[in-house]
């Protein structure tokens, strides 16, 4: 009875969608920490970005360089999407039928925009694999890619500028102990590849 209630009770506040964070591949690759805010099964799960922000969803634009179909019963796609700093490992499985069908129609190489949830796997030998569970993937043009690089550079610099002033930022500094200068350099190099 109680479990039914949230469905039937009138919604007072509209649903808040988790924003899609802008993050470069090189930063996402360094991400190790994931957590939930509450024990509730439905509460969102986050990864903690090394530049100091929680992240439930990302938006990335890059070049789809490779796409592979895997599995027989549980068909899914694995794809590599490359940005100026590295590679996103993107997956679309049968739980994301829309993304899977989109993926099926895209031929590499093309510029793609990906919306998805970052997930972290730890292998038995202690290595970390970060992949993006794809919610949607669409072909875009170079303009959109360039726009994204600037957008992501700005977002990353904004996160770095907070430098320990928010709880997430303080936690990231403590957990990752990465020199912020490394990410600043990553941003600079990503921007330097763009033609002025």
């Amino acid at each position, binding site marked *: 009875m109680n479990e039914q209630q949230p469905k039937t009770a009138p919604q007072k506040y509209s649903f808040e969608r988790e*924003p*899609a964070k802008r993050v470069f591949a090189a930063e996402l690759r360094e991400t190790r920490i994931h957590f939930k805010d509450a024990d509730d099964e439905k509460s969102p799960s986050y990864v903690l970005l090394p530049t100091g922000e929680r992240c439930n969803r990302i938006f990335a634009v890059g070049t789809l360089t490779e796409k592979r179909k895997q599995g027989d019963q549980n068909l899914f796609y694995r794809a590599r999407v490359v940005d100026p700093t590295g590679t996103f490992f993107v997956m679309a499985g049968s739980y994301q039928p829309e993304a899977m069908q989109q993926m099926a129609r895209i031929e590499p190489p093309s510029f793609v925009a990906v919306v998805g949830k970052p997930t972290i796997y730890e292998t038995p030998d202690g290595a970390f694999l970060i992949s993006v569970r794809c919610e949607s993937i669409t072909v875009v043009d170079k303009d959109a890619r360039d726009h994204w690089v600037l*957008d992501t550079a700005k977002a990353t*610099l904004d996160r770095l500028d907070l430098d320990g002033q928010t709880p997430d930022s303080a936690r990231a500094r403590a957990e990752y102990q990465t020199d912020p200068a490394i990410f600043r350099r990553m941003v600079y190099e990503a921007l330097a590849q763009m033609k002025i």
Partner: protein
Amino acid sequence: MDYSDTVERVSQKIVSRGHTVDKSRIEQKLKQLVEEFGVPSAEAERTVTNELFREFGITTEVATGAGDQKEINQFQNGEWVTTEGKVVALSSAPSPAIAQTGIFADKSGAIRFVTWSKANAPLMEKNRCYRLESAVVDEFRGVLNLKIHSGTVIKEIESLENIQPDYTPIDDLNPGVGSVKAKVIQEWDSTHERMLQSGLLGDESGTIKFVIWRDGDVEKLTPGSVYSIYYALVDEYQGRLSLNLNTATVIPEDEDIEVTSGETSFSGAFVHMAPGSGLIKRCPVEGCNRVLSRQNYCPVHEIQPKFVYDLRIKGWLDDGRNARELLIQRENVEKLTGINLEQAQEIAENNPLGMDEVFLRMRDQVLGKYLSCRGREIEHRILVSECAFDAYDPAVLADLLNRAGGDE
């Protein structure tokens, strides 16, 4: 039919005058009148109330005297009043039971009045002043009204002075009658053939919907112009106010005024296109316009095979910090996707996927791209009035390079 609200109202009137009454008796009487005799429910309510008033001897008690002379802003529900004021507006009677309706104003305020046909009262003329003795103030749909009945004495008097009303800031309007100075900031498509014009008025404090119904010699307002609007009816529907200008005296002003746009702007990446986007079918019933299901089913008017096609996009725009829900209507959908309604219909008709094909093509045009939009925010959703794809701006690059390289 459920009588509980009516029963409650009637019994309240009796109880508030110090008598007790059996609610089931009220319900039984109402039911009999409505169901056996086909009396309209409002009339049944009146009949039962009067009958009970007579039974408890209330009528005479209330009807004694003409009531105190009062100014309009002091009127209270249920009292008998004598008042002096000016007829500032007349509107056509909505029903044969009503001889005349309009707005009566003094320097303190204005109120809608209704003269019953049964009253056989002399009709009043616009812009003349009258003394009304023994009129009744009552409440209709949450707004006070002045009722002129057979016992009301109407006398024409000399012109009253200083009854020019003050303007009310739009944000402070209450249901009833109101005067504003405002600019026409939007003109909307008519949703009803009886509607001459509708749109949005704004002043410094806020915005409000306005409606002008086709009636006599009313004229349209010019978008972008400023008007002084005296004695418009402020209606409330589902918690939102609107101005009915049919009763109003509308005077064009030469000046320009500051207007809150009432709009928000938001830019970001379009990260999700929701089901129900693309080519849709709407219910053709006048004033309905609801979206039909695939089987042409309207939640109110059932199967509607003669639906009307429309385009819209629902989805989420995301700037990396916040995600906002958008509702984009046809004109902007056509602009963004390059697919107009006619082409969309053609695609749907000539394609095995039908309307889904339109959804997919539009999704491929918009999803994952950067957009900027403006629009009114209604219930956390932006009703987009203007939107465009963002162009890549190389000037930003130099700034960011400086920011990133600042440490070196």
